[in-house]
């Protein structure tokens, strides 16, 4: 093998590893949710060629309200799927679609588009000592 071949082979291997890591395993910047007066953790997500933000941090045990605004007609982003929460929601273009659920257990929950091309991650942190905002859910037990 010539030195050029060795160099190209090494570079290629690095590039392959990087591509696979970058697209399949790495994560972008996280955005924490802001609780509303009602105790609902709300995050707005823009859907255009991906989810912005694509990593969302919330607290366990409190309702989460994600508002997806789909700013394109590309087929890929037509649906958003949260498999663990049994959510498979259609996102009409140029509209805000609300997805609501309450994550009970801390952990990382990936979400994706209908074709698994676009990806995002919901990070559920333990309820912690953050003071729970007053909730209107009087009859639902504010266990968190």
């Amino acid at each position, binding site marked *: 093998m010539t030195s050029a071949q060795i160099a190209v082979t090494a570079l290629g291997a690095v590039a392959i590893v990087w591509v696979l890591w970058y697209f399949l395993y790495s994560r972008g910047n996280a955005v924490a949710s802001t609780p509303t007066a*009602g105790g609902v953790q709300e995050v707005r997500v823009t859907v255009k060629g991906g989810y912005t933000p694509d990593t969302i941090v919330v607290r366990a045990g409190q309702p989460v309200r994600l508002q997806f605004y789909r700013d394109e007609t590309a087929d890929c982003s037509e649906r958003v799927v949260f498999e663990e929460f049994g959510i498979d929601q259609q996102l009409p*273009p140029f509209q805000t679609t*609300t997805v609501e659920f309450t994550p009970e257990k801390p952990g990382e929950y990936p979400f994706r588009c209908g074709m698994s*091309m676009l990806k995002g991650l919901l990070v559920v942190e333990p309820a912690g000592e953050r003071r729970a905002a007053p909730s209107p859910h*009087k009859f639902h037990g504010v266990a968190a």
Partner: protein
Amino acid sequence: MSKTRIVLPIEGMTCASCAATVQEALTGAAGVSSAGVNFATNKAAIEYDDGHTNVAELIKTVRAAGYNCGKASVTFGLTDLHYAPSVAPLEQSLASVPGVIRAVANQATETATVDYVPGVVTAADLEQAVTAAGFEVAEPIAAEDPIERERIARSREIRTLTWKFVLAAVVTVVAMLGSMLLMADRPMGDNGTMKQVDLLGRLLMPVAIALRDWVSGQGWVLDLDWVKWGLALVTLPVVIWSGQQFYKGTWSGLRHRTADMNTLIGVGTGTAFLYSLVATAAPGFFLRAGLPADVYYEAVTAIIALVLLGRLLEARAKGRTSEAIRRLAALRAKAAHVVRDGHETDVAVEEVVVGDLVIVKPGEKIPVDGVVTDGASAVNESMLTGEPIPVAKKPGDEVVGGTLNTTGSITFRTTRVGKETALGQIVQLVEDAQATKAPIQKLADRVAGVFVPIVIALAIASFVAWFDFGPSPEARALVYATVAFVTVLIIACPCALGLATPTAILVGTGRAAEYGILIRSGEALERLANAKTVLLDKTGTITEGSPTVTHIVTAKKPDGTPISPADVLKWAASVEQRSEHPLAQAILKAAQDKQVSLLPVEKFAAMEGRGVRGTVDRRIIEVVSLRHARERSLELGSLGADADRLAAQARSPVIVVVNNTVYAVIAISDPIKPTSKTAIAQLTRLGMPIVMVSGDSRKGAEAVAAEVGIEDVIAEVLPSQKADLVRKLQRQGKHIVMVGDGINDAPALAQADVGIAIGTGTDIAMEASDVTLIRGDLRAVFTAIELARRTMRTIRWNLIWAFGYNVLLIPIAAGALYPITGWVLSPVLASAAMAWSSLSVVLNSLTLRRFQPRWTTLVAEGS
């Protein structure tokens, strides 16, 4: 200072106590006289004094309570706003429209931006407000409706896509000619260019040589360096404009750490273009390395042109996949003649309210759902039910919006409007179903998710492989490596994987709707295709579900003259008019049909489980069961044999006794639908075991089963036991399709693998069934199963194609054939294959549009 009423959409309510919170907040707000919040519809109906508060305040109240109001915004152009002395009147006029939160006009841009509550404000309201303020809108306001916005966005997209393609195509022709001149200039063989040996090059070489000879024959001398620069120049706009979306997509994908189609095309053409630019600007670099300074401009433009063409054709084909639903939606009438204040007025169909009297003239569409109050006509309902024969309508009958009145004129009272109408529900149901996927797509989705990064990795790997093991010298290997890298990226087609299921479901469910079959989801479709056993309910499914008098056999008078059946019917019906038994209804209906006038009945008594008795016309009339007649040892004579014969034919005989003498046997049966027998024969031909379930006696049920050709009968099953029965069969490993009516059989339908609710007519009412048949025709079950199987077959083929294509062609693109045959694929051919691949999936799905159930062809052949 007047009372105003508004309905606000509320977002974020998750439970009834949320609704209570919002309601409390609104009721307590200043100026609000009453507020009702409905959790189910997510709406708040508020009555307020518009002198004290306004919509913006109300929304603030809702927000303060921790919830949100739907808000939409629209910006529209205004003519001559520059010259207006002030925009205040315009803003005020717009803001005074109920439901408008804020209105801002901008003189510099001649536009107005309005924030409003969606669903409350219409475009027409805003236009009216603009006109009232003395201004004029530049073009109709269209953004109220997101569907409309989507349509506009799509058509604009297609238009620009077309122009981008045209530019790329024209440049491709020029670039091809140029590249052929370059190609022919070099001798073939070891010092030849790689382009001469790839698959496209082999085809084009003779043409290229002919072109070169023609050019030199004209006495023209070409400086090939200038040809390259020329090609670079014409390719630039294609890359910058036509191919823009690929590079933008690549960039946005990189930022989001996602990779899709755009990444592949973007990186592929980008590499080819940059490589060519270097070869054009610094050919010495290549030549010193003993390398032909080839350029690949024609590949760049051809790839962009072909991929754009593929997308264009795909967009058009995909438009056709949802044609069925558009045709359904287009059935809606636009206007209606409504009687208001005693006058007939024409109003838009949106303004018709429940309770309105609507007049429909011959040849007109029925605008909304209702019940006929006056007139008679025949209505063609084929567009909804598939039933070709017009249905007679008289007062009391239901009419359905979207159907066509034929000859007569009718007046009806509106019962449902808008989305509540049968048509509205059908459209909604089909649209919802079309948005779902079949479970079979799961694998494809999983693959699609990791597909692009893996393809990029493969492309890099093939680059390395060519570089290390490709033809010597090393510099030559670099060219092969680069071409292989680009070709692998271009040929990979993740779109075919993603389109395989959704397009087929779109077409399949749409086609089903045209046959009056509403399939709830892709999953229901898949289960229907896989079902193995059909369970049919008897009453209302195989039979009409309404008992009818079929025979009246009378005894002879002592003098030998027969007793008149009309008299028997008159007496029996007169007694039965006080009874509520289903058999009594059949006798009454027969009397009504025969126009027999009923007599008053005295001393009426119902004998529990045995029959009824009463005095009519000074005679004691009894209508009793056969068993009771035998128990009382009444003399039946030859009628006894008749009654037994009728009972064996699945009819219920009742005995009419006059003054303790048996006068007649009336046979009542639930007639079998005329289409049931054919339907069951067809289902049998599908190779599916058919089981009939009935609550009736074994004898009666078996008689019906024998008549329609069913061998397996489970009789004497209470409605509540049907679900258990389904469960029992399922435990034996059977995939059950249960066909029954949507109300009584609902638990069994829900328990079955696929529940088919039959003949719910126009009241689709969102039942729990997986499949709803609008018409009570059993043949639709056959059609539904066939269509489901065809759709699944189409999906399977699509997936096989999509997987097979990628598995086969990616290695070829990487150069797997080179060691054996010496073939190398050209990037141009790769892009053609890729564009064709995703298009062919859509086209394959479109073949479902021509689906016809086999029974229609059989009927056609038979007649």
